[in-house]
């Protein structure tokens, strides 16, 4: 069997790991619901109903981020807890293909885990029965690509679960609070604005907002692809580095 044909097998394995605990998917959806129907709804009451719709996609993208980091955590657990890494590396699949398959598997997991959330946001934005629904899934997929890459990079270097959790928290803080989920980039001090403008979350949010305003998502997605591909490449390189150790 050629290496290319093995890619779906690796992805299938990663997706099966996600479904091995369907409770986990339910909990992630519950997490999304709390973010949307408590936090976003409260800020909608405090600021205005249009604000609820403005920040709503943030709840789904935060869930995508959590799901993406679960992929990195699984890879970390394979290495340090389950002692599976050595076995996986003896499989007849080139390392590069294996690394790319793991990243693709992570993206698939994130898109699946956020599937109900993406539908809810699409419903709120009135695109549930429109072809633009596909664009919503593309945004989640491209955004997840970068975060899966980051989480795999962290899993390669974190020697303890505390280090992994700390770096994960720092990245989550950066993505959540130093982005345009809650406020416009102009509200930030000038020195912080470049950080906000290079944040993948900012462009994923812009893309979702373009869906709401019936605008084109091409520009924000084109920008989002940049950091996502860079982070995915970083994740692949770190994974290859760690398999050599």
């Amino acid at each position, binding site marked *: 069997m050629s290496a290319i044909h093995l890619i779906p097998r690796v992805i299938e394995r990663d997706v099966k790991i996600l479904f091995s605990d369907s409770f986990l998917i339910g909990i992630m959806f519950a997490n999304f619901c*709390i973010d949307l129907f408590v936090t976003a709804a409260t800020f909608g009451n405090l600021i205005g109903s249009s604000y609820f719709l403005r920040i709503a996609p943030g709840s789904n993208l935060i869930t995508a981020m959590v799901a993406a980091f679960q992929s990195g955590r699984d890879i970390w657990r394979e290495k340090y807890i389950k002692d599976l890494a050595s076995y996986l590396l003896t499989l007849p699949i080139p390392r590069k293909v294996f690394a790319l398959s793991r990243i693709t598997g992570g993206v698939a997991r994130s898109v699946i885990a956020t599937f109900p959330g993406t539908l809810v946001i699409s419903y709120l934005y009135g695109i549930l029965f429109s072809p633009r629904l596909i664009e919503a899934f593309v945004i989640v997929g491209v955004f997840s690509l970068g975060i899966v890459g980051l989480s795999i990079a962290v899993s390669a270097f974190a020697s303890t679960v*505390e280090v992994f959790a700390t770096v994960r928290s720092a990245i989550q803080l950066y993505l959540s609070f*130093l982005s345009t989920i809650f406020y416009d980039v102009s509200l930030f001090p000038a020195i912080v604005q470049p950080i906000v403008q290079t944040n993948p979350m900012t462009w994923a949010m812009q893309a979702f907002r373009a869906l709401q305003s019936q605008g084109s998502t091409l520009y924000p997605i084109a920008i989002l692809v940049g950091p996502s591909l860079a982070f995915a490449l970083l994740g692949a390189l770190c994974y290859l580095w760690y398999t050599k150790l």
Partner: protein
Amino acid sequence: MARRDIATLFRTPWIIISRSLAFIIQLFVFAYLMSGLITSYHGFFGYYAVGSVVATVASISFIIGYDIFEEAEEGLLDYLLTLPIPRREFIIGRALGGAIRAMIYTIPMFVIVAVLENFANPLSLLAAFLDMSLLAFGVTGLSITVAVSVRSANRFDVVLALLELAVSRASTALYPFNYLPGYVQAIAPYSPVTFAADSARAALTGFSLDVLGVAGLVAFVAIFLGLGATFYFRRLEGGVYA
């Protein structure tokens, strides 16, 4: 046992770094920027500042559950159980350690908020501190209960994160009651974080004692510290970790 748990937290600076960073960003970035957007509620920054300390106490108190789960998973619990310490003292020590370290850890944040908001009355500060201590004890018990009830590592991680999110968000710690959605208003008054947040705010801003809040906190502590201790004791004696 309590001293060991306190030392464990301070030996793992990563947790302290991540939670401190979260507090600083939430207060000085999120709350600051949001208070500029929120015009319908006067003094949102001050409201959020007190609430974020209360939410952090709850968040740190949850960590004892992670420690207990990891000890079981890594086999360290077997060693701990061979120590010449009675089981009951072992469990009480864990609960005490989890709560005390949460309070030690939160003191600098409480000081920052007190300075920012000009809370200077020693009695008010003491009352708010006691409210948060009660919350810490109760959440420690809740966290231990979850740690000994959930078996899968991934599931445990997400359940505890969800629980942490739920008790903080479905409360008046971070958002004023009148602005919560109706379905959250129905449950928020019964949240232990609401008891602690309302009681601490009453002490700090109104110089008064929220008797209902304190009573709610005491009941929460009694229930979950008792439940946590009972579940943990049963697991240990039942040989589940062997």
